[in-house]
């Protein structure tokens, strides 16, 4: 898939498809812009007029209430009009091609599409066919990428552990199939992090960890040793082998973010998770809501990151006829 089209001729953000290959200066500018948009704790959220008169379509071919809601809040806080489309349950059932859906909504005056799709490369496919004034933001495509999640992860890390080059980070779970892990790893690598360990049962580990820039292990003790940040991933129960209940119990014992397993990480290790969490599977409630957990802060920061991305993109797209496919 061609993700180069996410930058315009001047190297500015045109679409957001992946964190892979996003230049460091641009990535840092997204984080810096988000710093101005994430409210102080207790302060009212910032509501600014940057997207006044623009229409944002949340185009979800796969359900995700949480991600859709944060994009919706972000767009509304930029004063955009927001339309939520659960395509999985509407036109798709009638056999409409995905691009026909895109063209129809473009004709209704859409400016930005936030796209969630089960197939790898779907967002890039839309971006390649979108009208010149229309931008695509990838909200998760298959197991490929979920760039705003990767950006909010590094944004959250930067607020607590800004020294990316000396960071030791462990990611536990189904990294091979996780678009979140891929986007977070690419963003971390761009910011200079070299010590990234991925931990899980053999079949969850990426086939070529070296190419991804990580080391892989099935031993949680070795993987967590001295880690500054421990990130858990949501486990889909159907991916855990064998007898369902025994599989969950074994996974929780061997790879769960439990007090026992986390004893191997740094005492001050911070805990992250993209949510929603499966209590008693990949994490315990005790860990998820501990003082060292950043999980709810990640959710809060996600709105600011999505505002920053939409504001930067909206500042780059102009002109074009709303009727052009």
């Amino acid at each position, binding site marked *: 898939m061609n993700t180069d089209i996410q930058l315009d001729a001047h190297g*500015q953000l045109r679409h957001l498809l992946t964190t892979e290959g996003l230049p460091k200066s641009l990535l840092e*500018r997204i984080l*810096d*812009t988000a*710093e*101005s*948009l994430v409210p102080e704790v207790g302060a009212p959220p*910032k509501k*600014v*007029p*940057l997207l006044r008169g623009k229409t944002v379509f949340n185009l979800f071919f796969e359900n995700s209430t949480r991600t859709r809601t944060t994009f919706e809040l972000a767009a509304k806080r930029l004063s955009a009009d927001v339309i939520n489309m659960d395509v999985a349950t509407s036109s798709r059932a009638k056999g409409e091609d995905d691009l026909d859906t895109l063209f129809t909504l473009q004709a209704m005056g859409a400016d930005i599409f936030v796209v969630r799709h089960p197939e790898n490369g779907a967002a890039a496919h839309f971006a390649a066919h979108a009208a010149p004034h229309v931008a695509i933001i990838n909200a998760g495509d298959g197991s490929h990428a979920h760039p705003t999640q990767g950006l909010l992860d590094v944004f959250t890390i930067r607020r607590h552990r800004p020294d990316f080059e000396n960071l030791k980070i462990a990611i536990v779970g189904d990294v091979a199939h996780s678009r979140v892990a891929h986007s977070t790893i690419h963003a971390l690598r761009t910011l200079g992090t070299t010590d990234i360990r991925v931990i899980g049962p053999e079949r969850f580990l990426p086939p070529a960890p070296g190419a991804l820039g990580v080391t892989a292990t099935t031993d949680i003790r070795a993987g967590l040793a001295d880690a500054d940040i421990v990130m858990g991933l949501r486990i889909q129960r159907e991916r855990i082998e064998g007898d369902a209940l025994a599989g969950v119990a074994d996974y929780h014992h061997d790879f769960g973010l439990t007090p026992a397993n986390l004893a191997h990480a740094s005492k001050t290790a911070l805990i992250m998770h993209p949510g929603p969490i499966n209590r008693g599977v990949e994490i315990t409630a005790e860990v998820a809501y501990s003082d060292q957990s950043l999980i709810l802060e990640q959710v809060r920061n996600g709105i600011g990151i999505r505002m920053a991305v939409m*504001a*930067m993109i*909206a*500042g*780059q797209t*102009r002109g074009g006829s709303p009727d052009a496919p």
Partner: protein
Amino acid sequence: MTDSTESFDVDAALAALTAQVEPLIAEHPDAVIVGVETGGAWIGERLHAHFELASPMCTINISFYRDDFSMVGLHPSVGPSNIPAEIDGKTVILVDDVLYTGRTVRAALNELFDYGRPSAVKLAVLVDRGARELPFAPDAAGLKLDLEKDRRIKLTGPEPLRLTMR
């Protein structure tokens, strides 16, 4: 327009501005100085240091409220707003380098009010160059000029500050 570049005496303008800000500070000793990024922040810092204010220096980024956003996008090199001072009920001295159309002041007021409700806002500028498009007048101006719309006046800095016109 000509190619010639004209320079102005920044120190003299700054001294004149300082003299006009002095009575504002005398009347409101708890005043908060808020400089508009980036040129207004440079001028604001000099005023802040001169008057040895108790409140911390504040800076403001107007990018989110610019009315020409759809044409220019977000300005990449401007730092975020930094308002460490409490501004509720205080007199804010809003500082900018060049007062021209007044659009920056409008945007700055929008951004400022995201942080609280000052009891009053005073406007202090290094240069008032005229050609206003919105109804604003400065409370203090170090240099008053009456320039045609096609002239461009620009402060560069922060060290040394230079004020040039093309």
